[in-house]
């Protein structure tokens, strides 16, 4: 629950947090400021927790994290809202949806879910102010979200805004929105200034344009947050893995010997280049079809450096057709540097690293044409590939070239496995640079990755255990459900 509404102090426990969420709202209800049906005319609610209720409505409406929201709504409204049977039905419908959703997405159940959510929303709406302005959490202070209950008879709403510091008292038109649903939500985004206090006015107009109701919101000051509270779990993971990588790099620097398993695809680089040299045929290196802002292209160009060094040593002819200008430039720099390091700067020919076209199949036609004409003895495919992977690899296969491929596109791996002699699968592709260089520092980074794998395994096993326990003991409503929810939505960042 931490981090859903960022204004809560981070030091609160889960129970305290729930109390912090519910208490102010109940206090407001008790004070008769909301739920009485009377207009909420600009009374300043000092606690901005009213927004929690609106956020709750928002989440229920969108069906997101439905079960938890139902439970929170139940807690918020309590027994005075609706009978226990209603909540059981709402939860039952939700659980059925959760079970069926992925398998068949049966519309009947979805409709059922929406109907129940609608009832909960209505129950909640009765206890919220008719018009509220809330600072959007976890943003840079550029958005205020406005919520209001639909006014009977209203066809359209005009929303106006003013700065509280503006002494002229002039309201500025913000938006005009047609009425729909039980509640309305409008975002005032990018037009508000961080740290400035605003008030909003809502005019409900009927079909003839006559004002039927008018509300003024609480004041709100958009604030930018220095930390995205729902990403704390992910940050912890990033820090652990980065620290492990840096630790092992430092360990390697101190001379500690690190051993890594043999990767057949990378062992084959020397063999492939050697074979091409013996046959007097060129080596073809294809760095994928993405630009330099793709990490796979970066990894591909790093491997190109190693291939270029071996090619320079063997005095082999290396050809690199690229589909992006920046990749051509980076590849040229890399190949030149490695020819220089190999002591063969004279053998470097920049014309061999050339641009063809940005178009995917135009590039395929250019590369396969080159392959058929020049019949390379070794082909390397290292980078991001899509539909062209099999066309390239099969062409190379028909020519009898030794082929080594590496990509982080899981969908393309089967094609490369089927058509190439060696395929670097996923992490092997990224490990290639360290493996080929033999540099102890870089090998240290591979060891650090292993710690990352260990963390992933622990989280995986823990998640499996929690999910199994939740299913076995029907613990959706208990703390186990909370843990499962946190793992799925906060740690894995699936809804952040």
């Amino acid at each position, binding site marked *: 629950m931490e981090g859903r509404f960022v204004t809560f102090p981070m030091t609160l426990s889960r129970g305290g947090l729930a109390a912090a969420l519910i208490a102010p709202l109940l206090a407001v209800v008790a004070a008769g400021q909301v739920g009485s049906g009377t207009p909420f005319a600009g009374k300043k609610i000092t606690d901005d927790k009213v927004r929690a209720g609106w956020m709750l409505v928002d989440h229920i409406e969108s069906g997101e994290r439905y079960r938890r929201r139902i439970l929170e709504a139940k807690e918020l409204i309590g027994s005075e809202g609706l009978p226990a049977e209603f909540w059981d039905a709402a939860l039952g419908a939700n659980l059925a949806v959760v079970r069926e959703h992925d398998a068949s997405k049966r519309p009947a159940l979805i409709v059922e879910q929406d109907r129940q959510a609608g009832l909960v929303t209505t129950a909640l709406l009765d206890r919220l102010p008719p018009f509220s302005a809330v600072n959007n959490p976890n943003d840079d202070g550029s958005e205020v979200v406005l919520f209001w209950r639909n006014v009977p008879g209203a066809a359209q709403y005009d929303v106006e805004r003013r700065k509280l510091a503006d002494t002229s008292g002039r309201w500025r038109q913000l938006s005009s929105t047609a009425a729909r649903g039980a509640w309305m939500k409008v975002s005032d985004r990018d037009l508000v200034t961080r740290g400035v206090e605003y008030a909003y006015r809502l005019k409900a107009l009927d079909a003839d344009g006559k004002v039927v109701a008018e509300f003024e919101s609480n004041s709100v000051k958009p604030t930018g947050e220095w930390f995205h509270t729902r*990403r704390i779990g992910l940050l912890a993971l990033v820090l652990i893995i980065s620290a492990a990588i840096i630790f092992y790099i430092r360990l390697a620097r101190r001379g500690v010997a690190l051993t890594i398993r043999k990767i057949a695809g990378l062992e084959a680089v020397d063999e492939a280049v050697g074979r091409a040299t013996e046959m007097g045929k060129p080596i073809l290196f294809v760095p994928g079809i993405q630009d330099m802002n793709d990490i796979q292209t970066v990894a591909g160009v790093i491997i190109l450096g190693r291939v270029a060094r071996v090619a320079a040593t063997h005095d082999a002819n290396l050809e690199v057709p690229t589909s992006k*200008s920046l990749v051509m430039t980076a590849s040229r720099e890399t190949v030149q540097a490695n020819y220089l390091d190999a002591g063969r700067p004279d053998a470097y020919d920049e014309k061999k690293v050339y641009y063809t076209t940005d178009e995917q199949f135009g590039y395929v036609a250019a590369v396969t044409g080159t392959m058929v004409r020049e019949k390379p003895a070794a082909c390397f495919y290292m980078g991001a590939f899509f539909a062209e992977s099999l066309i390239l690899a099969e062409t190379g296969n028909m020519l009898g070239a030794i082929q080594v491929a590496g990509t982080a596109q899981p969908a393309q791996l089967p094609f490369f496995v089927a058509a190439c002699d060696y395929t670097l699968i996923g992490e092997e592709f990224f490990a290639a640079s360290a493996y080929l260089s033999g540099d102890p520092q870089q090998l240290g980074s591979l060891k650090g990755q292993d710690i990352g794998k260990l963390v992933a395994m622990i989280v995986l096993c823990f998640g499996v255990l929690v999910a199994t326990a939740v299913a076995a003991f029907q613990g959706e409503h208990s703390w186990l459900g909370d843990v499962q929810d946190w793992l799925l939505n906060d740690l894995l960042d699936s809804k952040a």
Partner: protein
Amino acid sequence: MKRTVPLLIVFSVGLLMVVHYFVPFLGDLANVAVVHFNILAAVAMILGAGNLLFTHGEKIYKQHSGWGYSIIAVGCFLAMIAFGMFKIGAPPKQGATAELTSGASIAMVDVEKSGKSDYALKLRAGKLEPDTKYEIKLGDKVVAETTSDYKGSAAAETAIFTGSDAPDSVEGMTVSVGELTGKLEPYGAFTGAYDDDGTPFWFFYYYAFVPLQQTTFAMLAFYVASAAFRAFRARNVEAGLLLGTAFLILLGQTFAGNWLTQGLPKEGFWSFFQISELSAWVMIVFNTAGQRAIMIGIALGIASTSLKTLLGLDRSVIGAE
């Protein structure tokens, strides 16, 4: 210096991208880096185009084998640039336009013919009175309303005439946005889109480039068949398993697969042995598990490669060792 400056840029921009993900306060700062990359990539296109011309130009000049194809490549390249940049064959936009000014306020009004007799009005205005509602009039008729934002900018887009209401021409009509008034003038040359229907660019793109592209893509079907034939030869136990699984998945995707096992009950234990169920089970359980394992490895590999590049431990990508 040649290596240090790029390394510093890589480190600072990379760090910014990471920090930005966790610090919403930074707003759009990370997008600035992305925009700079796009600018860089756009400028680099000149390098690419230059390289293309140079490579093929040399081939033609020295009459290397296949130099005739290079003539076609260079010719098509230059022709498409000319068609696009000079809008060859592209007629001016249909409709009329007006630039309305008064003091510092400015409004551009376009009344474009969007169909046979339909017109759409587009407005872009700046330096107006902030947060004010403006009426847009064509002649004496109010055709739209817009409200300026807090900076005094306003925009509007709306259909104004449809079908029989539409006049033959809007040229010469008076248009006003609040106090700003002017007359609609016909569009000048080069205002039409380079890829409008009927332009040479459109013709060559849709009747030469797209068919060629689709032909290349269609070849994939034959390559899939030849690769599958080779991959599914049952030479050992593993290959046999692969063949069996592939056969099951293929059957599961076809009518024949469902037809073969339609006699099995729809519910209960035996329903699991329906080809479609078995196929879905293999895909959801085994395939998903394998893919996720690979994805975890890839994610860690990306983290490690990014960290090495950020910290300058691996500098080969900028041409340094």
